[in-house]
């Protein structure tokens, strides 16, 4: 049987300052697009870091395509990638140089063609020979996205991919992510504060609060369960501890 793309079971992370993730479990099938919603300190970034093998769980397990993270990460890291506004690329290197270095680290065949195709797809062709540090934040986000896609990842982890982008560029990025997922059949896990983004992109939403999963379902089911019209209202209900309508009725 083909293993799920991501399988997280009873995941716990305790730092000295306290509990960051508290018994989180979920499974993401291959080709799914899931949103991880939650306020600051909800545990989204910590969860993603453990899925990538950047952080060792205190207890519980993370498997990516059946490989335990972080112990067996080198079996799958070439099939994954990641983008976050909190991680940069060397600013003095040009866009082309950065993409070349990462392409080589991931062992991408036909790298020059791949970079040209990505640049075309993400509107970076004119920027390829400019230092990354001289670009606007929106342009840099597109470069980070190009880096995240350079190895055609089967699992793509995105931590607030449209933070700091203007609405037009954010919308443009979302459209490209949807296209990439459709073409590649990739599994995407997207952590975000942006409810519209999650509502538009994701077929499943996991809502986290204080390190735990508070709710999990399709956007339509969550809206129905809370009797709300938007995910933003659902999010506020969860953040402020209001029970959903079914619970309230009981």
């Amino acid at each position, binding site marked *: 049987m083909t293993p799920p793309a991501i399988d997280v079971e009873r995941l716990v992370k305790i730092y000295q300052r306290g509990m960051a993730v508290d018994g989180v479990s979920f499974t993401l099938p291959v080709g799914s697009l899931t949103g991880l919603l939650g306020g600051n300190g909800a545990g989204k970034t910590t969860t993603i870091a453990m899925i990538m093998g950047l952080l060792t769980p205190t207890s519980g397990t993370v498997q990516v395509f059946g490989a335990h993270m972080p112990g067996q990460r080198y079996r799958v890291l070439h099939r994954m990638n990641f983008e976050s506004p909190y991680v940069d*690329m*060397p600013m*003095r*290197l040009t866009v082309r140089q950065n993409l070349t270095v990462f392409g*080589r680290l991931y062992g991408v065949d036909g790298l020059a063609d791949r970079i040209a195709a990505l640049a075309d797809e993400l509107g970076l062709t004119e920027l390829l020979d400019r230092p990354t540090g001289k670009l606007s934040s929106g342009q840099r986000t597109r470069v980070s996205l190009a880096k995240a896609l350079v190895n055609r990842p089967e699992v793509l982890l995105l931590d607030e991919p449209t933070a700091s982008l203007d609405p037009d560029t954010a919308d443009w990025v979302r459209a490209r992510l949807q296209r990439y997922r459709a073409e590649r059949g990739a599994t995407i896990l997207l952590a975000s504060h942006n409810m519209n983004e999650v509502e538009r992109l994701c077929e499943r939403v996991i809502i986290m609060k204080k390190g735990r999963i508070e709710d999990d379902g399709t956007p339509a089911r969550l809206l129905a369960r809370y009797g709300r019209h938007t995910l933003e209202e659902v999010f506020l209900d969860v953040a402020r501890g209001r029970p959903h309508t079914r619970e309230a009725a009981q």
Partner: protein
Amino acid sequence: MNPGSENPISQYTVSWRRIAAMIERYWYLLRSSWPRLLELVYWPAVQMLMWGFLQLYIGQNAGYFARAGGVFIGAVLLWDILFRGQLGFSVSFLEEMWSRNLANLMISPLRPIEFVLAMMVMSIIRLLIGMVPVSLLAIGFFGFNLYGLGLALAAFFLNLILTSWAVGIFVSGVVMRNGLGAENLAWSVMFLLMPLTCVYYPVAVLPPWLQIVAWSLPPTYVFEGMRALLIDHQFRVDLMVEALFMNMVLFGAGAGGFMLLLRAARRHGSLMQTGE
């Protein structure tokens, strides 16, 4: 296998393509910044000129120093191999911290051993960019030909670069685990060794208890060996072999420390936060 444990085979698999990619990354950076290139030559040149002129002055007034022609210049050049070798290694690592790129590397297929090998190559490249012009200046100004040491220079270089890598690897691990708050260690740690490794004076000058400390440090053997060569015209193979054994232990300890600190960084979440 225990899910939390490291996979010992894949951890140490080496791909020359990935090492070359990292070297290319650092080379792009060096090439893009003339101040970075200039800095590699600037301090070694200033140091060499200062010690060279001091040696000229003392040599004209004291019989011993007249006999020990080139000891100070030789010492300053060898010291720079040790210091710049470590700095060349550590700065490559710091570049990843400064540019907040470490997480990108750690989620790529790049193995820690490949990362370390790339930084070792870069430390030699940075060293050559700095030291070759300065060693030529030493010939021009003072008639001191470092390359005239021949095989001894190779032995000195090997031992000094091994020490510098061992210290550089360990310091990088400390910075990785503790963030850029520990950056100053990278710039200053070698100066702790300077008085103890007897760069400019013989070990016999130290009090007996400090001599024990000095002889526990591999560079001491190199600087003593250099003085034996320049003053007594004798190449002390025994000193070089002892230094090599000590360096192998030191290098193993540095690499082991780096891996332990990497594991601790993974536990504490330091790889995500590369600030202070």
